[in-house]
Each structure stands twice: as structure tokens, then as C-alpha cells.
């Protein structure tokens, strides 16, 4: 993991001091709420329906037990004893008091954390594969590059007042777990024919009211030139992105309006010029320094499969069920990647209590080389667990309510905060997620249904990623009432696609039935071993429409 040196620490401290001054000016009335708004938004502080909300960055989703304990401490001391993991690998606190926020930021700084650029029209927290450094299908660990991007994009003097927010995702594996094609910039780590490391760059993906997939604008950017290339893209966006209409200000609209060819031409011209006039090339020593922080932990030389693990799988059905969904293959023999579900049946997706946070910190220290990951699907991951420890870990997770065997299944729902918290929402998302989760409470049934990603957004801004849900649910407002629209067939992996809308929306009393009807229709028509997504791809929407709306 990356550790701050004195330079990183100095920057974060300066920012905390600055924000403390700004909050003091606001509290004393020297600046108005309007003047305060851009300042708080540079520090992750939103004004929500009922209170301020503070979003804390977890850069590329990687953190350790010391940091997790601090997140727990903050939940206990300054909030209501819990936190909420988001779809951008961040954590949010829903009830901080304004005068205490500088203290929260000060406390975070003691463990090398902050809330810088988690809001506002700037380059946001860089996201990545939650299995980075552990996945079996990985080419190289993308996190060193995420860290270089984090540093370059922090307090960038030229790109802090962009037309709109800007999200970058980086992956280093064949299977895309970071949804890079629905980001403003998606970068895929790759090797060229000479075995050199570089990045394939996609630009202009995004969800929101106009979902679009990123367009590939460069096959290979050599690794040392990554930042120079990103700077070129950012300058083109900063100068040419639309500023006349909030809803057309993302880079995806620019790329759509001028076309990928013209975008490539503009970016290439900037890139050439940046290289000519003082390139932003990182020195090899600095690249090596950062790579070194992400060297793999000292894995023990183990057999591919641990015999005691295999025995437990045969002997304990509950454990076997959990292992089937919540464990992923690790690159090191004898190790496994463990997913902790923050989706207990009927509970709020992504919420975690301070007590659970402390427990996860202890378990990470004991079983996972002190590493924790936050996932964009609002769960947590312990990336490096010995197979021989899995049974014991599972028991301890079960005690904490963190072992629901539902990763990737019907009740592993992504939901935005919705109308319970958010002043943009049309409809509630969380109660619907809870109701659907309860409807599919029977785990055997969920396992029988198989992989199913249900994603719920309370409004068109699509924070719940409904466009890329196998079943996507969008909250809409109809004459002041909450309604929900269903789309099918979306996906956010390397075969990213946007789901198609089924038909008229459902009210809050019938939406869960409708989801169940969709699932039952799939069960009735699937072929052997065919997943929900594959079946929708094969049969299209018609059978589902017929089941929901009948034939006319």
C-alpha cells in the first residue's frame, strides 16, 4: 500500500487548515452559504435533505486496518455510529455537524486520509478493480498508476473548475471489474508487442440521463507518458466541454457531439504540444518508488489447493454456499480473495456499523496482510486470505453479519441513497432494495437464479448505476408519486451494455412483484446453465413484456 511521505502529509495538512479557516468564516457569517458552497464542495461536504453529508475518499478502494479503525472512530464520535460505502469506493457519513467537520478531516489526516475532491467539478477519486494485486487474471497491478493519477490530479491548478465532475477508472485485468467504459476516462493496463507496459484509453463513457459507452481513443500510451496524455484529454475537455447546460457538460456529450475522430485529433494535438513544451513525464525513479509500495505481500509458498479447505467445503454446506459466491480466485497458490457482503437480507446496501468496521479491521490484520478493499458494488474485500484460514474467517464474519452468501446474486443490490437522503431524488431507493432483498431472502432460491445484478437509482442521475444492471430500476416522479421503471440487459464488465427499458413504470406497491415476475420468466425460459444476462441477450425483451403487461 502507498504510504504518505512528508510532501503528501504537508499537502493534506495545508488543506485541513484552509478548510478550518473557511468553516470559521462561514460560521461567523463573513461568507454566505453561496460563497461557502464551492469551498465545501472541494472538501466532500454536501448539503443533503436533512443535514450535511461528508464523503471521504478511499483512493482506488484500497485501505488498511488503521484507516478502517479511524473510519469507525469517526462514525462513533461524529456521526450516528455507522457509515455508508458508495459505488465509487468511498465512504459517506450522513450526519456530521458543520463545526466538527474540520476535526473529522484532521482525524482522517492522521491516518493519511482526506475528503479532497470527492465532490465538485474536478477530477474525483480514481477508482479501480477491487481485486487489484490479487486477481488471477491480472496483467499488472493498476494501483501504482492510480496513485500517480491521484497525486497529479490533486489540487491541479488548471483542472479544478471543469465543466462538470470527472471520473477516471483504471483496470489491469482482462475481466473488467471497474466498469471503465462508463467513466469519463477508462484506462486498461496492457502490454505491447515489445512487452512494454502502457494503457489503452477510453473516453466519454458515463451513466446519468444520457448513458454512453466510452470510445477508444488510443491503443497504447506508454506508462511514463500516462499523465501527459491525461493532461491533454483534460485540457481539451476544459476548453471545449459545454458549460451552457449542466446536463450536457460531461465529456461524453462533447465526444458525442464532435465525434471520436475529432476528439482524437484535438487530444493528439495537445498531447504533442505537451510533450514538446515541458512534458509531464514522471522520472523513472519516482515510478519505481511508487511501484515499490505495491509490491506483493510475502505470500507463503503453498499448494494450489489446501486440503483442509477442501474438506470443509465437503463437510459444511453453509460454508460451501458462502465460498461459492463470496470467494474469488487468487493469483497466489493456496490463497483466496474474500468478499464481505454489506447486503444482509433486508438491510440497507452499503451500510456498516462502527462495531463491524472495527471487526473488519481486526480480521484484515489477522488474515489479509492488513489490506481491505471497498468495491464499487458497495461491499468490502479482504484480498489476500490463506485458504486454510477461510473456515475460521467465515465463522468470524458470520458472527458480525458480514458473511451473507449473496455476492453477485439477487440480493446483492446496488442502490443510491435515494429520497431518504438526497435532494435530487424522485423516489426512494433503499426501502425498495430492502423489499426486493426480503422477497429473495431464500438463499437456495437466489443460488438457483444464479448471477443477477439488480441496480436501483432514485433519479435519472443514475448513482445506482441502473443503466448497467442486469435488472435496472429507475425511480421516476409521476404527478408527485414515486414510480419505478425497469430496464433489462445492462452490464458493466468488459462487455459493457446499457439496459433497455421494458415498458410503463410500476408504483411502489407493485415494483417488487414485477421484479419477481421478471426473474420467474427467466427461470421458465432459460436453457441449461444460461445466466439471466445471457438469456435476455438471447430472447430479448418480449417474453418479459408479455409476462408483465400481457398481450394486447
Amino acid at each position: 500500500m502507498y504510504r504518505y511521505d512528508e510532501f503528501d502529509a504537508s499537502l493534506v495538512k495545508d488543506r485541513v487548515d484552509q478548510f478550518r479557516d473557511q468553516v470559521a468564516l462561514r460560521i461567523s457569517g463573513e461568507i454566505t452559504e453561496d460563497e461557502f458552497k464551492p469551498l465545501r464542495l472541494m472538501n466532500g461536504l454536501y448539503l443533503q435533505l436533512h443535514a450535511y453529508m461528508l464523503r471521504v475518499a478511499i483512493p482506488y478502494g484500497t485501505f488498511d486496518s488503521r484507516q478502517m479503525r479511524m473510519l469507525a472512530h469517526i462514525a462513533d464520535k461524529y456521526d450516528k455510529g455507522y457509515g455508508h460505502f458508495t459505488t465509487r469506493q468511498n465512504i459517506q457519513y450522513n450526519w456530521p455537524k458543520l463545526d466538527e467537520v474540520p476535526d473529522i478531516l484532521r482525524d482522517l489526516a492522521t491516518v493519511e486520509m482526506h475528503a479532497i475532491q470527492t465532490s465538485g467539478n474536478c477530477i474525483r477519486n480514481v477508482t479501480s478493480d477491487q481485486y487489484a494485486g490479487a486477481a488471477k487474471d491480472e496483467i499488472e497491478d493498476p494501483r501504482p498508476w492510480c496513485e500517480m493519477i491521484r497525486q497529479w490530479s490533486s489540487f491541479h491548478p488548471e483542472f479544478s473548475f471543469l465543466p462538470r465532475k470527472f471520473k477516471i477508472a483504471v483496470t489491469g485485468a482482462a475481466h473488467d471489474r471497474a466498469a471503465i467504459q462508463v467513466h469519463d476516462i477508462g484506462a486498461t493496463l496492457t502490454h505491447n508487442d515489445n512487452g512494454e507496459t502502457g494503457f489503452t484509453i477510453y473516453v466519454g463513457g458515463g451513466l446519468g440521463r444520457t448513458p454512453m459507452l466510452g470510445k477508444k481513443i488510443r491503443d497504447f500510451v506508454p506508462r511514463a507518458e500516462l499523465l501527459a496524455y491525461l493532461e491533454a484529454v483534460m485540457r481539451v475537455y476544459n476548453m471545449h466541454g459545454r458549460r451552457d447546460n449542466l446536463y450536457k457538460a460531461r465529456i461524453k456529450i462533447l465526444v458525442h457531439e464532435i465525434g471520436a475522430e475529432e476528439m482524437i485529433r484535438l487530444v493528439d494535438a495537445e498531447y504533442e504540444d505537451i510533450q514538446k513544451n515541458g512534458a509531464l513525464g514522471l522520472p523513472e525513479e519516482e515510478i519505481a518508488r511508487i511501484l515499490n509500495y505495491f509490491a506483493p505481500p510475502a505470500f507463503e509458498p503453498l499448494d494450489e489447493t489446501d486440503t483442509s479447505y477442501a474438506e470443509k467445503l465437503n463437510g459444511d454446506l453453509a460454508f460451501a454456499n458462502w465460498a461459492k459466491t463470496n470467494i474469488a480466485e487468487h493469483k497466489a497458490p493456496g490463497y483466496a480473495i474474500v468478499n464481505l457482503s454489506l447486503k444482509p437480507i433486508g438491510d440497507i446496501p452499503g451500510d456498516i456499523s462502527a462495531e463491524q468496521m472495527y471487526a473488519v479491521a481486526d480480521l484484515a490484520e489477522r488474515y489479509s496482510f492488513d489490506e481491505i478493499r471497498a468495491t464499487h458494488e458497495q461491499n468490502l474485500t479482504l484480498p489476500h486470505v490463506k485458504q486454510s484460514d477461510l473456515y475460521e474467517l467465515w465463522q468470524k464474519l458470520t458472527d458480525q453479519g458480514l458473511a451473507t452468501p449473496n455476492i453477485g446474486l439477487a440480493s446483492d443490490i446496488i442502490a443510491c441513497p435515494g429520497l431518504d437522503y438526497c435532494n435530487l431524488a424522485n423516489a426512494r431507493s433503499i426501502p425498495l432494495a430492502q423489499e426486493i432483498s426480503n422477497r429473495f431472502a431464500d438463499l437456495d432460491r437466489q443460488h438457483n437464479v444464479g448471477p443477477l445484478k439488480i441496480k436501483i437509482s432514485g433519479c435519472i442521475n443514475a448513482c445506482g448505476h441502473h443503466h448497467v444492471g442486469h435488472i435496472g430500476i429507475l425511480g421516476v416522479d409521476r404527478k408527485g408519486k414515486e414510480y419505478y421503471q425497469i430496464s433489462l440487459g445492462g452490464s458493466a464488465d468488459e462487455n459493457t451494455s446499457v439496459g433497455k427499458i421494458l415498458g410503463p413504470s410500476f408504483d411502489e406497491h407493485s415494483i417488487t412483484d414485477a421484479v419477481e415476475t421478471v426473474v420467474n420468466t427467466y427461470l421458465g425460459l432459460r436453457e441449461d446453465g444460461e445466466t439471466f444476462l445471457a438469456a435476455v441477450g438471447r430472447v430479448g425483451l418480449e417474453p418479459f413484456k408479455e409476462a408483465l403487461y400481457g398481450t394486447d
Partner: protein
Amino acid sequence: MALIKNGAFADDTWIDANDNEALTDQATVVSLHRWQSETDVLKSRNAPLGLRLDAGESPEAIADDIDQFDLIKLNFPAFKDGRAYSYARMLRQRYGYTRELRATGNVLRSQLQFMHRVGFDAFEVDERITPEVYAEEVSRLHEVYQPSVDDEHPVFEKRVKK
């Protein structure tokens, strides 16, 4: 409104001319439109010439005429409109402009360090921003992560030197 130039209050000796106004022999700032439609007249004038660029008017338009101007004003129509940050950096880095580069419009104190970093050396500010406030704000962050137009060494360079 006050003018802060290189960190101190300064008198504004420039006249902002609108597009129809007859020009005097005083130092005068004109719009891009006027520059483009009266280039020859303005070039033969025997007094300092300044240029106003609004957001949306890229300095690319005057790339070949940089030497004609003793002052370039970049306007921020709203603090959220960050186009002029790129314009400033391009003027300094790409086109080699070395004279006064002034920020006008909606300039917030919290933005002064970023503006300074991309090459602004003069600022039209409201009365709450004094040279003392300017000095405090412009050195808020003691380290920087990225090279820009100012003399600051980014931390990756400092790390390598250590």
C-alpha cells in the same frame, strides 16, 4: 475593485475601451473582436495595447500576435468557469507570453493560488482581498504535485533529488 499586481496593490493605468469608443494615446485594452477587425490600425498605434479574452475565446486566435500586447486580461464570467486556467497556461507555456496576465471577473480568494500557478500575475479583486490576504492564499499549499507555469518544483522532482 482593486488591482493586485505581483502581490501588492497597484494603480490601474489602463483604459478598457469598448468596441465603438475612439482610442486615445493612453494604454488601452481592446476586445478580441476589435483586435481582429482593426488589426492594422491597432498595430500602428503608438501606445501600449492590451487585449481582453472572454471565456470561449481561446488565445489560439492571437498565437502569432503575442508580441503586440503589453497586457492580456482573461475574464472569469463565473468562478465555476475554468477555461481561462487553460488559456493562461497556454499563453505562458505554448505561446511564450511574458508580460502582464490579469484575471478579471469572478475571482475568489480560494482560487488565487491556482491562478498564480497557471501564470496570472495580476488580479482584479473585490475589497475583501488585500495584499495580506493574497499573500496568505497564494501560498496556502506548501507543496505541489504537478509542474505548471510557476517556479514551484513538483514533489516528484523533490523526491528524486533527495
